[in-house]
């Protein structure tokens, strides 16, 4: 039992840190993860890591992973968060890729994995539908077999950053005469296919992050189906468990907390720094303690994974607490900036106002708070996660 790093691990950390310092794009410094980034912004850092062999820390070596053990992966995540790099988006690397290397054909692996690893192709996730949110298996987008193709019709929604996507992985219904879970297939769809239309959804923070994806008579080669027909639910569940671990965002939350503390020392309230305010300090401590508990819990899950026990229902615990902590960080940010949460930077920037109102850290506080209300909803709402734990962990 120990929590300290070995000399080798410290050397590893220093190597990562030096690499980031020397190679992270200058123009992306200080961007954080909540401004409106372009496709190129995201991919440029992904490609740099890809060229080094570090864009896919969790992949097996045979598919291009670096062969790191759990502690190294943890250190890597910490260092990326510490440097506030643009995130490597999870849709390709952490979501569809594990499905492809676990369930895919040799041809699919060869076709898709290298491009994901190198950051050449952008992926999006076609899961939710207007009528199938928490009840994902109730999805109705239909794929009808026609020779070597499926003809796909339906609508997906909440598709994150689909406006940039080259490829999408979609859950589609291939059989309606059975239990909902038994008639689903997992398709890889070229987003440039005729009949694919991406329509923006503007969220309450004014951002264009999510989309509707409409599919009208889209022709998809049968060769782009992963795993057997009507067995897509197996892939879907496998992917969701992977999604949930990443969703905890512990390293990013640690960075968020650090920034929050800095803001509290800089924000003057009635002539004194807010960091000296007992009530505010109490809330900061409470948050930090909860985050520490989450961090150690995540490390325990990682250690288990290292012994070959894949992420199971415990990842739901990480999702619940990780999402709530992200929300509380933004809640305290908004509290810290007080009256200066009010000015809307999107509005004054749209009008050509090239100024910031209020203290540093204030302009995005409210919009970030609004935005992260999503974390307890997406990736399986926190209510659904509790159902999973009740059923699979407690056996209720």
């Amino acid at each position, binding site marked *: 039992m120990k929590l300290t790093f070995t000399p080798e691990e410290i050397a590893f950390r220093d190597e990562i840190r030096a690499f980031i310092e020397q190679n992270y794009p200058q123009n992306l410094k200080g961007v954080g993860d909540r401004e409106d980034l372009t496709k190129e912004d995201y991919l440029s850092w992904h490609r740099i890591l890809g060229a080094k062999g570090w864009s896919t820390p969790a992949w097996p070596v045979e598919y291009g992973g670096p062969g790191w053990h759990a502690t190294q992966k943890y250190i890597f995540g910490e260092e990326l968060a510490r440097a506030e790099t643009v995130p490597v988006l999870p849709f390709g690397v952490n979501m569809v890729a594990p499905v492809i290397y676990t369930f895919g054909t040799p041809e699919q692996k060869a076709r898709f994995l290298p491009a994901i690893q190198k950051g050449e192709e952008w992926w999006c996730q076609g899961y*939710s539908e207007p*009528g*199938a*949110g*928490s*009840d994902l298996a*109730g999805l109705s987008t239909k794929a009808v077999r026609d020779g070597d193709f499926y003809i796909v019709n339906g609508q997906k*929604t*909440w598709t994150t950053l689909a406006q940039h996507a080259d490829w999408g992985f979609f859950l589609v219904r291939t059989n309606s005469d059975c239990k909902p879970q038994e008639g689903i297939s997992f398709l890889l769809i070229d987003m440039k296919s005729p009949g694919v239309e991406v329509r923006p*959804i*503007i*969220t*309450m923070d*004014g951002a264009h992050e*999510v989309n509707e994806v409409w599919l009208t008579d889209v022709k998809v080669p049968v060769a782009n189906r992963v795993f057997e027909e009507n067995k897509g639910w197996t892939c879907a569940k496998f992917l969701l468990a992977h999604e949930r671990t990443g969703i905890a965002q512990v390293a990013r939350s640690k960075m968020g907390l650090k920034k929050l503390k800095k803001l509290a020392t800089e924000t*003057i*309230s*009635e*002539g004194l720094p807010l960091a000296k*305010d007992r*009530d*505010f300090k109490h809330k900061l401590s409470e948050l930090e303690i909860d985050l520490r508990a989450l961090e150690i819990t995540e490390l325990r899950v990682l250690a288990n994974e290292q012994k070959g026990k894949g992420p199971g229902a415990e990842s739901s615990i990480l999702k619940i607490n990780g999402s709530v902590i992200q929300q509380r960080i933004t809640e305290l940010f*908004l*509290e810290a900036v*007080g*009256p*200066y*949460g*009010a*000015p*809307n930077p999107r*509005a*004054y920037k749209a009008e050509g*106002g090239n*100024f910031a*109102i*209020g*203290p540093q850290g204030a302009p995005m506080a*409210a*919009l970030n*708070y*609004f935005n992260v*209300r*999503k974390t*307890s*909803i*997406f990736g399986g*709402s*926190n*209510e659904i996660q*509790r159902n999973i734990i009740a059923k699979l962990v407690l056996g209720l």
Partner: protein
Amino acid sequence: MDFDFTDEQKMMRDGLSRLIAQKYTFEDRHKAVASKTGWRPDLWAEFAEMGLMMAPLPEEMGGLSGDAIDAMIIMEEFGKGLVIEPYLQSVICAGSLIRNAGNDTQKAELGEKITSGEAIFAPAIYEAEGRFNPAFVATSAKKNGSDYLLNGNKAVVFGGPMSDSFIVSARASGATSDETGISLFVVNKDQTGLTTQNYTTVDGLQASELFLEDVAVSGASVLGEVGGAFAHIEQMRDHAIAAICAEAVGLMTVANAQTIEYAKTRKQFGVPISSFQVLQHAMVNMLIALEEAKSMALLAAIECAGDDAKARAKACAAAKVKIGQSARIIGQNAIQIHGGMGMTNELAISHYFKRLTMIDAQFGNVDYHMRRYGEMD
């Protein structure tokens, strides 16, 4: 014990509710927020025509001699309709300052402008470093012959962009946080030395930063006793709190109703999501939060209508705490139960959530008033 409104009050409420339903739909509001001016001058005129500006103000200001109960009724309807016009600033806040600090001429002249709706006034009381403390006044007022020269900045002045005049607090003597030494000045928007930076807020309102540089105001524009304005400011704050709590109650009422309606119609797993116990309990908690908020908003209004300053301050501090807590419970649960749909800009619920969220930082947040309450005995 009587919690009933008079017939006149009920008529005013119903008339306002009808006007909002007809002319202030969610789409109308959306357009107004996005428009160049960012508000509805036409509706402002209709509000004035209905007598809403007169309702809570005394006769000598051209008002109908109503009180904080009338203000509560109006603000609750404004909350329900997500109304963005600066009634709180001009009628409640400026109205309160002029009523309590103004001389007879000021009451008559400025009061007429407010009650007719022909001019808009905004209080410019808070400063960036003072956060929620209205006694923190670094803006200085230096005597210059019979004039005063004002220098300093005022933070997040709601209603600023559409205001014709500001009521600015400035200090003629004392240290920055002293309660004595603060005076109030009526400053016209076009006065030399006054610049503003206008912006839209995240919840669709309009506000300004004020920068005063050697703004020369005459002795006639001093509101009340020089150096003795703090009690008036405190009273204004309490009335503002009572009013904004009523607005919050209106917002929460609609947020709860929309959430319940959504849960009853949204189906997952073949049943309405309202049949899930975990969501039922969440909605019950929202109802409890609303009922508590209603009670405290009512208490604040009743004490504001009374004449016991201590009881008024205590009730308003308590109400602001409770409203902040209830707004958080209701706002967060409303979005959670709406799921992804709640996140969109398209649905009204996210706008109720945003306004409910931002009310906490107006006139002091939960922590501020919790502390204030604790220090009052």
